[in-house]
């Protein structure tokens, strides 16, 4: 998903050609175009704005550094998403010591604190959002990334296949598994 600004109409290939010819400022146009999409993905993958910010920045820096290897005519969107996905997966893999708080504990704690402020209704309304977010967060990374690329970014199976370098059949089976798991964890909200 891209920003709705005037630069969107400019062809990615033209911008990349300028960058390759030494106009590094042209890269800013690409950043503006894809920043929200990349940020959304990094945030969804990490569930942490501060980390998402760092990963989004890192994605663009790495894209810039490798731009000479980008083939003309290829899909820049897929290419930069591939970088972002890999950075996220690497980060998550290496953050094994990261705290893994049981979401039920967090909810209980939030409710406990907030109810003291008389904001229980707001918290209950928020709870569903939290549950869904936590259910997605708890998916295995391989399933999560396929689900987010499909549902959030609305990529086709073929596009996901190219970004993740896996067969389309695998995309479909991973999506099925991701949806099955989510049905099990947030099924009660789906029936509302």
């Amino acid at each position: 998903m891209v920003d709705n600004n005037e630069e969107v109409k400019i062809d990615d290939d033209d911008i990349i050609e300028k960058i390759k010819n030494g106009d590094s400022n042209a890269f800013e146009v690409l950043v503006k175009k894809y920043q929200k999409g990349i940020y959304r993905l990094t945030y969804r993958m990490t569930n942490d704005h501060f980390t998402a910010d760092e990963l989004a920045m890192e994605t663009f820096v790495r894209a810039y550094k490798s731009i000479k290897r980008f083939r003309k005519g290829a899909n820049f969107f897929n290419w930069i998403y591939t970088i972002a996905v890999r950075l996220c997966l690497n980060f998550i893999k290496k953050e094994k010591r990261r705290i893994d708080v049981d979401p039920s504990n967090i909810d209980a704690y939030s409710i406990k604190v907030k109810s003291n402020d008389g904001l229980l209704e707001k918290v209950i309304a928020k709870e569903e959002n939290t549950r869904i977010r936590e259910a997605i967060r708890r998916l295995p990374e391989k399933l999560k990334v396929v689900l987010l690329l499909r549902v959030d970014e609305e990529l086709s199976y073929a596009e996901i296949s190219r970004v993740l370098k896996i067969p389309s059949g695998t995309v479909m089976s991973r999506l099925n598994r991701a949806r099955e798991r989510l049905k099990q964890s947030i099924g009660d909200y789906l029936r509302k």
Partner: protein
Amino acid sequence: MKHKKIKSLIGAYLDGELHGKLKNLIEEHLKTCSECKKELDVLKALDKKIRQEKIVFPADSYWDYLPKRIMKKIGTREVGGFLSFRIPRIKWELAGGMIVLLLTFIVFRQMVVDKGKEQLEHVVLMDRSEDEMRETITASEGEGIGVSSTGSISGKKAGMVKDGETVKTKKADVDVSKVSTPKEVMKSPSVTAEESEKRYFGKAGVEKSADIAGQAAPAKKESEAANGALSGMQNELEIRGGRKQIDILSDIKEKENYLKTSKDKVETQNARRSLVRLLYTNANMTRSRVDLERAMKEVQTYRDSYPSDYEDTLELYDDSLQLLIEEMEKEEETSKERK
């Protein structure tokens, strides 16, 4: 097509990935199968919920400034930040140095082993030739023929003696009874290693032995040195295991110093955000009360400085840190009760 197979394709149908006959087949099936229809509705609801799950994006100013931050980072070629997969240049240099050291050690070790083998073979040959000569002496005593077995056989000579060969002289000039076999020497507890060598090899033998030992000693020293280097490398690797925290601590210090002098509002906010993230990561690693409380304090400082900025992440940090403190307090209480 079987019901089970069709059910597994409902997701793909919902995603618009099916076309032609297959799509028609699914649609026909959905008209008659309530279970599959229900599955489709559930999946639709699920996707809707996922899309509806609100992401509170940062304020507009963030998007104005993010491209500038990225361009600045590209300009200064500063890659990384607190991220664990950052590999600073110094680490590459260290890794390169370690590889060279390791290769040197392997090559040197092989040389020492080869040399040792060569010398061992030499000694074995000497041993064998002494035995052969002794047998010859014994056999030739009655015939009045002796072997020059003064024990002063040089290594080279001994090395030249081959199986089945005997070296004959005019007369035995040695009291054969005084010649001890290596086994006897070894059996005698009062005989020191040096004496045993002297008794068995004679002076030259000792010299030769000393020569071998002399060659082996520096080799041993170098081997020990190489082992020491390896041990040093192992220590270095062990240290590297905890290096991430060292990096984090150094980054924390850097951010704190930057915040003392920074005047740029946006940069200050970025640095403070990084500091919160670093302190949070560090607290999760150490799980010490001091670090946890320090991180919580910084979360609060950020919240006070930039109200309504990244509320959900700050809330998550706060809750996580609070839970860790509670867990720690419970553990402390349990250990007190046990005592």
